[in-house]
Each structure stands twice: as structure tokens, then as C-alpha cells.
């Protein structure tokens, strides 16, 4: 009756092959990550493309390294890391004519735009999340608003950049009073006359809001309703219970969301490139054109050659390490602060 009571060897083979295949496919992900780090690191250390890693290639770096002792750096074209060392991080000049490169300006721009954006987006996003989890509005309306905020996350960054460029004059009009009245502050020190760092930060706020709102809303929704009832039962007002009970209970999710958003802000490219002015001159003023690592890459990589390419990879490596640190921190914080409540 049953011809397959004993499993045929083909079936076992298929089973094994399938399991192996999923393992291989899964490892593609991690290999890609390693590949990215290796590639960017390699390009930052050496000039020349990856194929010079192959020993039989005529300008293989191995030949150069083997010949290291014979003649000085024969065959090896060292890249930005050996050339500039750690000084790269503290040097604010980016000069293709003298081949003198330092990433201080874009690093400062990256950190400053992200910090400003986060400073504005966190209260706005958490406030919105609270508004969406409380019963201020009927459930239907809240669902629609929540959906709209999610859609904001789906709008491509390049479209936001295009929109920001169209709104340029509006931004400038809004910034001018700040310069006129508070111009003595170094941050408002220059007259806003075109694309600048402050605009890039504002566009980043728009991009970070949906992330922070969505994550905060989820973690607020996960706070057990018994906790809220408990706070109300001892006579807490709505906002006392929000600030003293709900937010502390949801804090791991909220902080995690903010870190996630920070990671996004650090690496955000298109909208920032279109609106930051892409100047490599260091300025403390938020109303001066600036650049971020990502915008520097988008703006210069196409036309760069020789050591400049390697310097851009070096900058990219810095950006990757920054985002990696932020992401690891996010995961650690979420685990550390996670509420053990069932």
C-alpha cells in the first residue's frame, strides 16, 4: 500500500540540501556585511581596485608588499589611511589641488545635523506618539493619522530634497530673523543666503519623525493597561500617569527608536546633499553651507580620482563605524532598559 514507508534516499537528500541552502543564503547577509567593511577598508588603505588583490594580476598589491624591503613601496599605491593617518579626522581642509584631505568639516556636519534633527524630532515624535495612544481623538481618526505618519516614512529622500529646494526661500525667510536678532550667537553668525546646515537638519527632522513616532507608539501601546489603571487609581492625572508611569515603562522602546533614527540621520544622503550647500569649509554657523560625510560622498565620488577616491572611502569608513556604534548602542540600551513585565 505505502511505497514510501521507508524514506527514499532522494527525499533525505532534498531535505539536507534544502537546510544547507537556507544556511548558505542566510550567511550571504553576514558575508555582505563583512564584505562591505572589508571593501571600504581596503579602498581606504590602498589605491587601485579590488582586483589588485588577485596574486596573478599584474599590479597585484602582493608583489608590492613582497618587494617592500627592496625598493621603497614599489608597486603598492598606498591610500588615504597610510597617507593621512588619524590626522584625517582633525583636518578641516579638503583640497584636491594640493591633495590635502581631512574629514573634520563633514564629520562636524554629520554630527551637528543629526544632533539638531534629533533634538527637534524626539519631542515632536514622542508627543505625537502620546497623542496617538491617548483618547483625545476617536480611534478611527487616530488610525488615519498613524497611517499618514507611516506614509511620511515612505516618501523617498530625493523627493523630500526636491521639495526642500523648492521651499528654499521660505526657509531663508524664516531663518533671517534669527540671524538679525540672535546673530551674536556663533550658531546664527552668518547671514542665511542659500542652502545651509540648518535646512538639512530640518529636512532630517521630517525624515526622523515617522521612525520615532512609530517606534514610540508601539512601545507605549505595549505598556499593560493595568499600569495606567494603577496610576489613575491613586489619583494621577492623565499627564502625571504619562510622564511618571507610561513613559518610564516604555523608555527602552523610545530610546531604541531615537537611536535608530540617529543611525538613519547620520547616513542620510540625498535630501541632505540637495540642501546643505556642499561646502567643505568649516563654519560654526548653522546658516552657512556645510557638508556631511554622506553628502560629500554623493557630491564628489563621481569626479574624484587617485588619492581623493581613497580619502572618500576613508570618510565612508568613518561613517560606517559611527552608524555601527550607534546601532550597537541602540541594541544594548533596548536590552538594558527592557521592562520585565508580563
Amino acid at each position, binding site marked *: 500500500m505505502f511505497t514510501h514507508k521507508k524514506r527514499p534516499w532522494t527525499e533525505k537528500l532534498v531535505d539536507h540540501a534544502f537546510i544547507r541552502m537556507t544556511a548558505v543564503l542566510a550567511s550571504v547577509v553576514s558575508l555582505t556585511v563583512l564584505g562591505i567593511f572589508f571593501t571600504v577598508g581596503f579602498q581606504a588603505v590602498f589605491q587601485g581596485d579590488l582586483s589588485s588583490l588577485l596574486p596573478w594580476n599584474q599590479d597585484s598589491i602582493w608583489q608590492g608588499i613582497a618587494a617592500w624591503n627592496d625598493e621603497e613601496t614599489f608597486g603598492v599605491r598606498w591610500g588615504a589611511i597610510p597617507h593621512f593617518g588619524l590626522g584625517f579626522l582633525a583636518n578641516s581642509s579638503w583640497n584636491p589641488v594640493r591633495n590635502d584631505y581631512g574629514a573634520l568639516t563633514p564629520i562636524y556636519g554629520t554630527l551637528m545635523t543629526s544632533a539638531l534633527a534629533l533634538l527637534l524630532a524626539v519631542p515632536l515624535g514622542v508627543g505625537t506618539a502620546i497623542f496617538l495612544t491617548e483618547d483625545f481623538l476617536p480611534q478611527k481618526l487616530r488610525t488615519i493619522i498613524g497611517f499618514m505618519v507611516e506614509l511620511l516614512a515612505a516618501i523617498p529622500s530625493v523627493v523630500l530634497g526636491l521639495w526642500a529646494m523648492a521651499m528654499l526661500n521660505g526657509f531663508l525667510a524664516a531663518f533671517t530673523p534669527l540671524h538679525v536678532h540672535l546673530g551674536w550667537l556663533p550658531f546664527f553668525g552668518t547671514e542665511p543666503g542659500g542652502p545651509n546646515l540648518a535646512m538639512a537638519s530640518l529636512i532630517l527632522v521630517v525624515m526622523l519623525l515617522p521612525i520615532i513616532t512609530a517606534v514610540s507608539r508601539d512601545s507605549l501601546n505595549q505598556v*499593560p493597561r493595568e*499600569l495606567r489603571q494603577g*496610576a489613575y*487609581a*491613586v*489619583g*494621577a492625572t492623565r499627564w502625571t500617569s504619562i510622564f*511618571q508611569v507610561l513613559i518610564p515603562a516604555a523608555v527602552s522602546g523610545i530610546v531604541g527608536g531615537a537611536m535608530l533614527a540617529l543611525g538613519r540621520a547620520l547616513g542620510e544622503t540625498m535630501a541632505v546633499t540637495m540642501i546643505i550647500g556642499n561646502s567643505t569649509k568649516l563654519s560654526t554657523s548653522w546658516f552657512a553651507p556645510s557638508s556631511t560625510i554622506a553628502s560629500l560622498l554623493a557630491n564628489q565620488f563621481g569626479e574624484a580620482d587617485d588619492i581623493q577616491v581613497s580619502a572618500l572611502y576613508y570618510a565612508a569608513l568613518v561613517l560606517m563605524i559611527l552608524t555601527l556604534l550607534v546601532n550597537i548602542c541602540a541594541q544594548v540600551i533596548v536590552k538594558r532598559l527592557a521592562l520585565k513585565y508580563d
Partner: protein
Amino acid sequence: MTSSIADPIISCDNVTISYGTFAAVRNVFLDIPKHKVTAFIGPSGCGKSTVLRCFNRMNDLIESFSMKGKVLFHDQDLYGPRVDPVEVRRRIGMVFQKPNPFPKTIYENIAFGARINGFKGDMDELVETSLRRAAVWDECKDKLQESGLSLSGGQQQRLCIARAIAVEPEVILMDEPCSALDPISTLKVEDTLHELKKNFTIVIVTHNMQQAVRVSDMTAFYNAVEVEGSDGKVGYLAEYNETKEIFNNPKVKDTKEYVTGRFG
């Protein structure tokens, strides 16, 4: 059918509570006596928790909730248009079915309520007194700075009772406070109740009839009937009297069947 109570602290005057179009419990008349323990018993879905949550406006958190009739607290309508539910909850505290300590330290769990109620005094003393009155002091006096969630279920529930009494309400509502606890913790909570009724009025919902006998002075038996023309049930107050009367000499047939375990 109700025994007349001299100076009631809470009284229900023809209370009907609905969720959306669905009536949960209807036409309740009930007087809660001061400094006594009143137990609400009855089968599931008869509206006893619903009525209880009405006493400190906890039902306000449910969007579809609506109520007809009056709930009077010291002769003032709790659902009057100018009443502040926050004010109500500071006078009428609550302990829930599932222990729900805040994710803060044990100390802060107690201090939180007192602080928002404007307590000006020795907080350490208040924390100690409250924990002692809830009979949980000995178990947590050495770990006041640990999270409230580090306690066992029964200890957590007594912490929640301590939290409720720390704000010195007049009435404490308890919604099946022992349903998630083991028998030993249950007995400890019941001991606590005997101690507390000297200072507080207590209303307790319970599924456990022995518990009602052990702790309460008055007992209200709720029942549910089929609603004509639908498959839902609506709760009503079937009988309300002194506890010993309800259990030894019930006037209503359903009560008798319920308390003797022949219900259903």
C-alpha cells in the same frame, strides 16, 4: 430587598451601565455602609466588576462606556457634570485583579501616589506605615530600593494595597484581588482586609464564596439573565443583605442555589 443602611458612603440609585448599545448591568439600587467590608459575588458576566469600577470612574477609560442613573458619594453625584474624576480617585482608591506595581522601586511605588496627592510629611514613615498596614513590611523592608516587580505575586498584590492606602482614600475598591494568588497569599491579603476596615470602607469583588464569608459584613449577589431577542446577558442585583443572612438565610431562590453551589 435591601436592608436599610443608616449613613451610606456610596449609594447607587437606579444605575444602568452600557458598553456601546450593549447593556452590561441594569437597575442597581445599592447602599454601601461606612467602615464595613462589602462583598460583590455572582457568576461571571453579571456586572459586579462593572459596578465596582463605576465607583471611582475607572470605566471612563473605556470609550464605549455609558451610564444612566446616579452614583452618590456622600450624597454628591460622582457623575455630575462638574466632577473631576481625578479628585474622585483620590478619595476612592482601587486594587486590581492582577497585581500591577509600577516599574519603579518598592519605595517609589508607595511614594508616587502620596507625592501626587501633595503629601507633605515624613515619606519614609509613610512608606513604612503603609507597608505595615498591608502586612508586607517584613518581606520587603530590606529591599525598598529594589523594583516592585522583583516581589512574588502575593507580595506584589499587597504592595498594591499598600500603594492604595498610602494616599489615604476613604474607600478602597478591590476587584478580585486574590484571583491571581495562591491560597497562602490569599489568606494574608484577607488578614490585611480585617485590619483595614477599621479605617477604610472596602468593597471587594470576589469569585470565592468562602472568601466573602470570611471577610465581608455585607454581601451583594449579582445575577445575569438572558436578554430577550438577543444572545447577550444583562446583569442585575439579585439580593443584598448582611453576609450571614445571604449565606444562611437567602430570600431569593437564585441566591440560595448560588451559595450552596447548585448554581447553573
